[in-house]
């Protein structure tokens, strides 16, 4: 294992923020795994840290394939991680929306540029990321449809789902989109947690990445074959919106199947305690995403269902 400083930023009254990369093996730039760019991605940082540990052990056993180099960047935004902020700096910039960055741009753009310039030539890019909206989701791989995506490769992670979606204007500033534009096969891995460590899901994500690296001939590692992923588009997901706001009492669980008309949740009146609304499943399907906070507003997405899919 070789540790390198990808970018160092000095800050008044704080120690320098160093973005560290850990390299394993020698040879062509094969795979790069990037951790959270927001200060609340604790689960994503934990998964990266577990990968560094696992790859270090594999390297010691001679299990990194010859001529292959793997890089892990466990955390990009340690500045925010240490102070419980989601975004970067006094200007609260979202580093994950600054790619490909600009070397002479503002601070967040420079961080993005430094990271991107270092990792842009890897053949495979895996980013551990999170939804902007608070909620739990089934672990899955997400890809942006920009003509360079390859859902068959995403299948090799062995996670239950692969989601391919059309880019929105704001996506053009993400790492995934810019990696794909430079012909890196890029994948975003979503787990069912964000701010808190979830051991089970972290283990599943770590295994999925090691499985992918094995199948792409970068490491020698025996692992379970995982799932044959179900490939979805955004249109296969049905939003279940609330009709009113209140206290959200969740019944349906992520990854579980619901039938048309099943009671998925209740909205409780925060003053009187009665159920203002019972959210019913609008279709048969599997719960892909569930709102995780205790309060919910009218019109919010309480769930997303994989339409007409059974366990």
């Amino acid at each position, binding site marked *: 294992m070789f540790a390198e400083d990808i970018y160092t930023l000095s800050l008044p009254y704080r120690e320098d923020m160093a973005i560290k990369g850990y390299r394993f093996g020698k040879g062509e730039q094969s795979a790069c795994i990037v951790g959270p760019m927001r200060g609340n991605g604790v689960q994503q940082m934990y998964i990266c840290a577990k990968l560094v540990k696992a790859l270090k052990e594999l390297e010691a056993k001679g299990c990194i394939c010859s001529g292959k180099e793997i890089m892990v960047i466990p955390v990009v935004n340690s500045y925010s991680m240490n102070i419980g902020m989601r975004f970067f700096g006094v200007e609260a910039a979202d580093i994950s929306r600054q790619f490909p960055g600009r070397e002479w741009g503002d601070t967040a753009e420079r961080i993005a540029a430094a990271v991107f310039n270092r990792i842009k030539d890897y053949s495979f890019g895996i980013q551990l990321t999170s939804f902007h*909206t608070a909620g739990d989701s089934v672990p899955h791989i997400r890809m942006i449809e920009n003509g360079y995506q390859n859902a068959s490769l995403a299948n090799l992670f062995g996670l239950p789902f692969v989601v391919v979606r059309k880019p929105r204007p704001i996506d053009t500033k993400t790492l995934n989109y810019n990696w794909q534009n430079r012909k890196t096969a890029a994948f975003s891995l979503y787990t069912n947690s964000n701010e808190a460590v979830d051991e089970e899901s972290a283990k599943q994500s770590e295994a999925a990445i090691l499985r992918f690296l094995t199948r792409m001939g970068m490491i020698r590692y025996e692992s379970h074959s995982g799932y044959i992923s179900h490939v979805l588009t955004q249109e296969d997901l049905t939003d279940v*919106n609330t009709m009113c706001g209140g206290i959200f009492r969740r019944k349906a669980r992520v990854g579980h199947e619901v039938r048309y008309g099943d009671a998925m949740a209740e909205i409780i009146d925060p003053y009187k305690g009665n159920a203002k609304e019972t959210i019913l499943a609008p279709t048969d399907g599997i719960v892909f995403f569930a709102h995780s906070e205790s309060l919910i*507003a009218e019109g919010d997405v309480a769930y997303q269902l994989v339409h007409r899919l059974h366990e």
Partner: protein
Amino acid sequence: MVKTVFSIGLSTGENLVIKKNRLEGEGLQGKGRRVAIVSGIHGDELEGQYVCYEVIRRVKEKPEYLEGILDVYPALNPIGITVADRMIPKLEKDLNRMFPGSGQGAAFERAAAAIIQDLEGASLCIDVHASSRFVKEIPQVRICEEFADKLIPYARHMNVDMVWTNATETVHESTLAHSMNVKGVPTLVVEMGLGMRINRSYGKQVVDGIFSLLYEMGIWKKEPHGIQYPVLSTDGEVEFIRAECSGMFIPAIEHSHFVKRGDKIGEIITPIEGRTEKEIIAGKDGLVFTLREYPMVSKGALLARILTDIRPKRTREEE
């Protein structure tokens, strides 16, 4: 008349309500050319509050001059304004990156869609912003190059100091202005002042400009005087000056002043060492139209923007 544009229930005994005030000329009954003034997309940008107030006050004072419809939306992100949050509180999302929205989406996606629907059909929309809390701006109109030919003739009458074509951020594709321009409603983005503050002088200048534009459009009968024409960014070049080290920025000049090449703009200091880390020197002559107000900077932070190689401004009378 104050009307509700959009309303949706929050979790605990309150609705999120977006309102507008409709002012219309006598006898129009909803028919006639309509101009919309919107503000408060970012909750920490308050300059538009004075602009909305002053526009409504002047129309109420002389309602006989109004020959069209004026819709004024002071607070598109009302909950953000109450807590001085640029983003939508709790969601931490930028409303001005959610347009055109979706009628079937989450609460603020629906709000964005409802705002667009309400603005459709207007002859003109003016989206009033302030700067961030970090840098101070002169009154300016920002427009996207894609729509420049259509928008510059409107922007000239806005009595601002500058029209900046091809500026980033506020003319991004997911913004209200871009969505409206795509829909064929000419939309100007006004920027001025500083976040979390109201500068009455800048506000008055922009309000004078709004009435000048309304006059040119035949919606306001009283002819304006003393309206200045802005410099165009395309006449010169915008030079960005950024911090090349971290520390505290102490400006050596006033905002909105001309500097000459070699003039000192400020310095970045390290207080605990009593040391000047870097002197910031102007590389070209020009107008400092942006100047940092928030002292703490990290490497790359914007310190100033200078519009170089520009012509002097002219007033309407001189033209």
